[in-house]
């Protein structure tokens, strides 16, 4: 920031004028500082909840003993084979199916005005796709399936690690996480040009989930991959994974957009994802992969393993998490393919030396500058480009310039939350960063307000979902039963129950009321929240539990629902629920869940639409309800 020091002569009485000016400036800076603080902690709320969420996802097991009990009980009920055998692609979409088969089996009606692809694809097809998606059209399912099967065929030929050279093209562009933000991809193409022999791209994973155009992004990237297989390169990200997609929105997106063919599409996609390459190396000096590295990363091993054989994260994850507290993590063996890939896709750089398990994410590790240095020395590398972590400016440089994080999804959490960026690498391998943001805001104050209220909304939902635990934690500090405790005690209770490292004292005014004596009325944080559907049959504790574990239950139900019908039988539901609660150590009356289900079983035919059931436990903000009614 440059100080503007031009001295324009003031005609007014200079002395009082400058004093007044200073006063105004002081106030202004004070206000801006508070705004900046609010913006920062809003972003840190989003990030903490996001990481805690990802960790919670498979926290089905937390210790060796519990895992054994789980397996034993589940085995007895015959549920293990159901839960832990994921449907594999060949069952639904035959390996042998090729373009002609899809053409025969799936009809494209005359009424369809979207792009009609003809293989092999040309630049014209790509343009038609871009044009269609800008106008919010959908690509017909037949073309999607054809595109995916062709993509799989091409990807199978590629090695785990692609080697590129800058010798014959000007610059290579590297992009990070896109997460379904089509606008960002279109903006990148607009600013930087479409992929071609002269304009090469590397996309570093996490193309899908969260944003609402994951499918379109995949279609565009795969189309360009088929047209320019030597000039557009894709690395796998941790979200190119069946279980992540179940939780983070991609599966839902596909099922909504392709009502008749989504099962086929998802099955084929699983295969395609498993064939995505793992890393790219430029000029043997710049390593590009999605997450990071660990102290056991071995590039030769990585190149040789069978990447499509790696089990889905759920299987690996469950085993790993079960042994989280034991020494297993530290005994990671190089030969284990799954762990190797987990490290590549999930690790994060940190400034402290060493390599420690990444407890925030629940997978991969935190790697320090010494780990980077060792890897670089071993393979004669100069730079590591990775993504995987949100950055407010779209990029960040760490480990003394050796590690670059590139994140290309702007406005990731909320409108105006952050910029996206991409890297231009020239033949000298000096990186140049280009930043962008999809929409422009001039009134910064309103912007912070928007981000802040979205962040606080997420936080309040978490608070509601932990109501009973919080209430008892507060009660422990409130020895006189007055309903009030000190700010310090309140902050400690919040942090210990929610396990989120946030600036609680700063957030306090937004979350809870304080009386003139400076004490916190701790129950006031629950005043404005309530449950979605009236659930008279539910005990409060049960309802709260369902609220908190809604997402986990959704995943488990989806796994059990093998034919993707959206329904599971009453017995399956009951058994699962029993297993789940007993594992988590939650006390519920034996028939409480049955009563609850019956009261909500709208179909009343012995099957439960679990999405409908779970919807009932969605936290609603009272103020919002007023606005909508």
């Amino acid at each position, binding site marked *: *920031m*440059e*100080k*503007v*020091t*031009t*001295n*324009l002569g*003031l005609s*007014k009485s*200079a002395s*009082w*004028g*400058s*004093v*007044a*000016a*200073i*006063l*105004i*400036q*002081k*106030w*202004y*800076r*004070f*206000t*801006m*500082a*508070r705004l*900046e*603080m609010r913006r*920062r*902690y809003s972003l*840190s709320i989003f990030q903490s909840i996001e990481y805690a969420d990802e960790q919670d996802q498979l926290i089905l097991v937390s210790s060796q003993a519990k895992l054994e009990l789980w397996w034993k009980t589940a085995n007895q009920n015959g549920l293990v084979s159901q839960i832990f055998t994921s449907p594999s692609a060949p069952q639904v979409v035959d390996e042998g199916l090729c373009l002609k088969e899809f053409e025969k089996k799936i009809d494209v009606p005359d009424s369809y005005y979207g792009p009609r692809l003809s293989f092999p694809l040309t630049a014209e097809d790509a343009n038609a796709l871009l044009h269609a998606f800008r106008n919010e059209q959908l690509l017909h399912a037949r073309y999607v399936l054809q595109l995916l099967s062709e993509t799989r065929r091409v990807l199978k030929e590629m090695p785990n690690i692609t080697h590129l050279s800058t010798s014959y093209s000007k610059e290579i562009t590297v992009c990070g996480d896109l997460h379904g933000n089509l606008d960002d991809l279109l903006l990148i193409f607009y600013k930087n040009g479409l992929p071609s022999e002269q304009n090469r791209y590397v996309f570093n994973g996490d193309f899908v989930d969260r944003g609402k155009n994951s499918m379109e992004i995949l279609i565009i990237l795969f189309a360009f991959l088929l047209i320019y297989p030597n000039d557009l390169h894709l690395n796998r990200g941790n979200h190119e994974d069946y279980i992540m997609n179940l939780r983070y929105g991609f599966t839902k997106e596909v099922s909504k957009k392709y009502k008749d063919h989504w099962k086929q599409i998802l099955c084929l996609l699983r295969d395609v994802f498993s064939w995505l390459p793992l890393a790219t190396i430029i000029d043997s000096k710049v390593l590009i992969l999605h997450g990071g590295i660990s102290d056991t990363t071995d590039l030769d091993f990585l190149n040789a393993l069978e990447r499509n054989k790696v089990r889905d994260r759920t299987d690996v994850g469950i085993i790993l998490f079960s042994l989280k507290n034991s020494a297993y993590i530290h005994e990671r063996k190089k030969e284990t393919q799954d762990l190797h890939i987990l490290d590549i896709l999930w690790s994060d750089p*940190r*400034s*402290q030396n060493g390599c420690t398990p990444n407890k925030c994410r629940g997978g991969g590790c935190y790697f320090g500058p010494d780990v980077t240095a060792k890897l670089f020395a071993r393979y004669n590398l100069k730079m590591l480009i990775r993504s995987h972590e949100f950055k407010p400016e779209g990029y960040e440089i*760490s480990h003394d310039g050796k590690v670059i994080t590139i994140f290309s999804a702007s406005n990731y959490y909320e409108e105006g939350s952050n910029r996206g960026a991409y890297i231009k690498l020239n033949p000298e391998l000096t990186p140049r960063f280009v930043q962008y943001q999809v929409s422009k805001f*001039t*009134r*910064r*104050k309103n912007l912070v307000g928007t981000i802040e209220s979205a962040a606080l909304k997420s936080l309040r939902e978490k608070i509601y979902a932990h109501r009973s635990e919080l209430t008892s934690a507060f009660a422990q500090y409130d020895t006189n039963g007055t309903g009030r405790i000190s700010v*310090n005690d309140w902050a400690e209770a919040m942090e210990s129950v929610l396990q989120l*490292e946030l*600036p*609680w*004292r*700063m957030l306090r*005014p937004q979350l809870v009321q304080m009386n003139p004596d400076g004490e916190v009325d701790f129950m006031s944080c629950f005043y404005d929240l309530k449950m979605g559907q009236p659930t008279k049959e539910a005990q409060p504790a049960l309802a709260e539990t369902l609220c908190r574990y809604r997402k986990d239950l959704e995943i488990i139900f989806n796994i059990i629902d093998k034919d993707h019908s959206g329904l599971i039988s009453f017995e399956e539901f009951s058994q699962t629920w029993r297993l789940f609660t007993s594992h988590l150590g939650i006390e519920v009356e034996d028939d409480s869940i049955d009563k609850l289900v019956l009261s909500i079983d709208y179909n009343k035919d012995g099957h439960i639409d679990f999405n409908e059931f779970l919807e009932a436990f969605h936290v609603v903000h009272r103020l919002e309800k007023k606005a909508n009614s």
Partner: protein
Amino acid sequence: MEFGAVFSHRDQTVNAVVAEIEKKITKAFEVFDRESNKTVDVREIGCIIRSLGCFPNEAEVQELLDQVNIEVEDPSGFVHLDKFLPVMTKVLLDERFQPIPEDVLLHAFESLKGYLLRQNVILCCFSGEPFTQEEMEDMLNVAVDPETNILHYRDYLPKLVID
């Protein structure tokens, strides 16, 4: 013995107050601590001090930084929490840099004669402790009515003052 008891009780209260203040400062510091390694960029210190409710002008921020022994000129300067904490704790204990009341602010605007024209606002930005280019654009964007080019300070003032 009585005195001893009184003093030790007072010490306890004072210690509790100091601990509370230190915790508050540490938490504010952490929001800006990108790498979770107890350091922040020196350029963010002004922001941190102000977010703790203090009201220093730029010269006073500089004075505090001098106490923490950091060179502002060096752009890669980092401030460590261990050095910042004692200085800031004293600031809060002594209740320095209290906010100026609203009516004084109003008076300040009024003294610059009624509503301000955009050019005058720019002039204002150049005197006192000059705004940076960014700060000036920001203020102009929010404060000045684009059609009349006038800053209606009575409308602007609540925006500055209210949270």
